[in-house]
């Protein structure tokens, strides 16, 4: 592993398998009566979240606490950011108190790369703008591997708001690196130009994407990032692109349905599918803690380049 986890783009398949194997061992800690190990004792981790988040922030915090790190949440809404402090200044000030790691979520793509250049602390990307969300892709891969054993050769369909989705970018990079056949589907207004270069097949027909799929991953319609009219109405979106029980029937019999959350029920996914027998959405949340523990543990170690030097 490198110094920071900025995106899936920097990881080799070996790095990815290492995270997944470590996460498999970490999962057992969550099942013990005492859910804590002393591994990161004395390490300080700052969770710096510039965007609202329930799942990712609590998941990181639980992972940090289970490894005995000292965690610190900077709630941007109650910080000097409101007084006009820039990201770099905030980071330099945090850095002056010498934390070991900073977990950053920011609305601007590339914010983590910026901090990575100026900070000695290790940076973990918890979502930067429309760019990447690497720990989400890792926990998705972990969940898929849990059910399907191998990722190579699976048909995986990702349906929804492709344009604004960092989850899509990280997942596309990861799943193609591990040899999956990836289909992406969404309304033409929400398909970013040039997406084929990620090595994915693009379609606007949900039926085509979902047919014989092993995995269906739904993406949230990100209305907070939409400034124009990308489709006529939410109801129409659901009729054309929403995941219904009828559409799920086109997939393989042992299909799993995933969603990174938060869900818009009745927009991208029907409630009976979200709560149905094929849904692994809550497993994804549970696995998120183990995967983040693995990332924290692996990044806390030395860097391979340093070891060679």
């Amino acid at each position, binding site marked *: *592993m490198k110094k920071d986890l900025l995106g899936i783009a920097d990881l080799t398949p070996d790095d990815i398998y*290492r995270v997944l*194997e*470590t996460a*498999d*061992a*970490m999962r*057992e*800690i969550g099942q*013990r*009566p*005492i859910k*804590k*190990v*002393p*591994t*990161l004792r*004395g*390490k300080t981790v700052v969770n710096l979240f510039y965007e609202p988040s329930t799942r990712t922030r609590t998941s990181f915090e639980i992972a940090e606490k289970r*490894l005995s790190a000292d965690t610190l949440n900077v709630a941007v809404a109650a910080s000097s950011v409101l007084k006009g402090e820039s990201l770099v200044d905030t980071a330099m000030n945090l850095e002056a108190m010498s934390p*070991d790691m900073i977990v950053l979520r920011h609305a601007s793509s590339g914010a983590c790369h910026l901090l990575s250049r100026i900070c000695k602390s290790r940076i973990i990307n918890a979502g930067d703008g429309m760019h990447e969300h690497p720990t989400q892709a890792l926990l998705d891969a972990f969940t898929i591997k849990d059910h399907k054993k191998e990722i190579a050769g699976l048909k995986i369909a990702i349906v929804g708001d492709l344009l604004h989705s960092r989850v899509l970018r990280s997942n596309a990079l990861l799943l193609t690196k591990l040899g999956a056949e990836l289909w992406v589907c969404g309304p033409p207004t929400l398909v970013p130009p040039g997406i084929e270069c990620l090595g994915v097949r693009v379609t606007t027909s949900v039926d085509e994407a979902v047919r014989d799929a092993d995995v269906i991953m739904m993406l949230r319609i990100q209305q907070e990032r939409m400034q124009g009219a990308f489709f006529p109405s939410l109801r129409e979106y659901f009729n054309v692109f929403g995941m219904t029980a009828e559409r799920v029937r086109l997939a393989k019999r042992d299909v799993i349905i995933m969603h990174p959350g938060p869900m818009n029920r009745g927009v991208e996914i029907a409630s009976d599918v979200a709560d149905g027998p094929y849904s692994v959405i809550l497993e994804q949340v549970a696995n998120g803690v183990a995967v983040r523990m693995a990332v924290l*543990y*692996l990044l*806390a*170690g*030395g*860097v*391979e380049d*340093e*070891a060679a030097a």
Partner: protein
Amino acid sequence: MPVVLDADRMARSLARIAHEILERNRGIEEVAIVGIRTRGVPLARRIAKSIHDISRHDVPCGALDITLYRDDLSGGPNAAVGPQPVIRKTEIPFSIDGKLILLVDDVLYTGRTIRAALDALIDFGRPRAIQLIVLVDRGHRELPIKADYVGKNIPTSPTQNVQVHLLEIDGRDEVEVLP
């Protein structure tokens, strides 16, 4: 002295340890055995099988990975700079509360692995007692730790390297001392 314990003598040492365990602990019902990964695990299974062969009693068997409890992970003053060691699964599918736990490792050296294992075990509950079984005791302790059952004491110098090979992992049973 390359080979200090061959397959035959290793088997006899483990059988003797099984007898000693039964001799020292009446009420084998409340005993469980836990091997430290990697090579403590097959040793634990073999001892459990010996106890079963002698007493017809099934001893629950677990595996403990101590990596997360090590004192030489990066961060400390004595940290070895380098990538983190691989973590494997801890599998203790029974309650250790009130039990006598037999902890098994291949080589007893500085005692730091055992210190980590004791911390790890105690996170799983409150055993009645913990006893330590090692195949080889090579000396040079850095912590006040002593084994209750020893396969063989092998005096070594700190520069030497004791390597335990086991059938289940390495394809042969043998203990070597390398210069």
